[in-house]
């Protein structure tokens, strides 16, 4: 165990838990760094943050952050975060989880948390596959891409996450990548300060699974993020992800709406009068 590490982010991390479990070239380390960097720059009170995650590689993120943290069951990060936010509105839950966890088994929870406008931030690492369990295809795998369960190419149409979450009612929706680090960090800062349901999709390479099977090296995958992702203002429905085509990233939604806790508080006051 490391006794003391003199690093400006050491207080934000559980230093005794490093090295982390993620593969070389995985984007989750960059997402974790961007998250704690955002907390650092905002001088955020760490006692007011609860980091919540589901299952999978991204699910391990909650265990490395020096906040209250809950590593929940597969797909259920949002119900737990919803419980935390509604039972103690002073707390700010931040959900860090993967696309498989949040949009397959957890998809129902996600759309309803967005619909209810629960005051929390979701950072969704999208690596297009179920990385931890062997790179099987999932609800975000682009058409034609190879995985062990789609050896001749994926035949299922993927979700467009920013479009789905926008239509479910999220008050802040953005998409960045682990190549666009300053933008990602700034987006997380905005999400942390936003009063409402905020969602940030982060495109992130899975080098060991998805990359290997599609003959993409870690360098290729990072270069793809640099070259194919364009920052542009479009309607979320247009921001689809298709192999060989440009991917639109940036901010898609930023609106104000009363949160669930705000409305619950008003109704509770009315009921008790």
């Amino acid at each position, binding site marked *: 165990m490391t006794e003391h590490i003199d690093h400006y982010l050491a207080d934000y991390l*559980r230093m*005794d*838990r490093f090295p982390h479990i993620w593969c070389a070239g995985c984007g989750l380390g960059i997402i974790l760094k961007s998250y704690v960097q955002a907390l650092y720059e905002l001088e955020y009170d*760490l*006692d*007011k943050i*609860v980091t919540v995650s589901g299952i999978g590689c991204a699910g391990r993120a*909650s*265990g490395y952050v*020096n*906040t*209250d*943290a*809950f*590593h*929940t*069951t*597969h797909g*259920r990060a949002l119900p737990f975060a919803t*419980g*935390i936010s509604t*039972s*103690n509105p*002073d*707390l700010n839950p931040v959900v860090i989880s993967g696309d498989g966890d949040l949009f397959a088994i957890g998809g129902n929870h996600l759309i309803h948390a967005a619909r209810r406008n629960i005051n929390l931030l979701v950072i969704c690492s999208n690596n297009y596959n179920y990385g931890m369990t062997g790179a099987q295809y999932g609800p975000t795998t682009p058409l034609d891409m190879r995985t062990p369960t789609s050896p001749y190419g994926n035949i299922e149409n993927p979700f467009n996450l920013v479009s789905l979450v926008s239509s479910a009612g999220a008050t802040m929706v953005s998409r960045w990548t682990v190549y666009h680090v300053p933008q990602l960090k700034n987006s997380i800062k905005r999400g942390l300060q936003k009063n409402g349901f905020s969602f940030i999709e982060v495109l992130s390479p899975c080098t060991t699974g998805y990359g290997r099977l599609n003959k993409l090296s870690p360098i290729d995958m990072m270069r793809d993020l640099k070259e194919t992702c364009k920052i542009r203002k479009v309607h979320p429905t247009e921001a689809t992800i298709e192999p060989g085509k440009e991917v639109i990233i940036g901010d898609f939604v930023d609106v104000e709406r009363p949160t669930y806790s705000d409305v619950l508080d008003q109704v509770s006051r009315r009921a008790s009068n």
Partner: protein
Amino acid sequence: MKAMTATSGPGISLMLENIGLAVMTEAPCVIVNVMRGGPSTGQPTMGAQSDVMQCRWGAHGDIEIIALAPQSVQECFDLTVHAFNLSEKYRTPVFLLSDANIGHMYEKLEIPAKEEIELVNRKKPSVSPRDYKPYLADETMVPPMACFGDGYRFYSTGLTHNEMGYPDMSVETQDKLVRRLCDKIRVNIDKITMTEEIMTDGCEVLVVAYGVTARSAASAVQMARSEGIKAGLLRLISLWPFPEGKLSDVANDVKGVVVAEMNYGQLVREVERSVKPIPVEFIPKLGENPPSPDEILAKIRRLAQ
């Protein structure tokens, strides 16, 4: 914050994964299962007692669970309070295993004054956040529990974890953790066990029942006594951990035991194991209604011969 959920069997089926998480993370909570007939969608709104084993074994892995079975509207109130107290004391999910017959019942209910209700709250950490080890238990085997937001900044996971709460896949940690999670309930079985005895002194035939079935069984025992048969009733108020010791004490000198439950054979197996080699007559009852006093009386008569 204390938490409770209420559902019936199909709802519990959906929740089982997170009940396992509650056992593993030692999250106190109360789960009400108003049992209806199954399997699957079965008999919505019609009574059964067929989730007794689901409650005990539904979540995967080695677990111990606490379950209480009310037999009246008053007990629904009293045992819900008690279920919260047990869940806080042992940091574990506690089931209130009721049945649709009790769930639909209209009965007199006396709600005690607030100050008369005994409330138990979980042990809070007495150390500073810096020294807090969220899964370090004292001699009670139950670790003190901080709240999110209290500044303790602890990590909780469904993975096998060490005293810091950190994932640890070693054989030693798994062994130590699972033993503690189970033993904190097992060693307290006598404290947790709740039963009611009706005319068990010197009885020759013992009836074992719980929930709505116990009401019918109490009538059957009265009827048997008026015929001169020395019958008694052991009503199980707590079903899990199974009150094995209590049952074998009460059944020590009886000729036979009658078990009545609204299923096709669940708790009866626990009874058989506990009273061996005393003969056990089983009354399985499927579909909406508990066995009638006459049905139970017929079995009592047979064992009394």
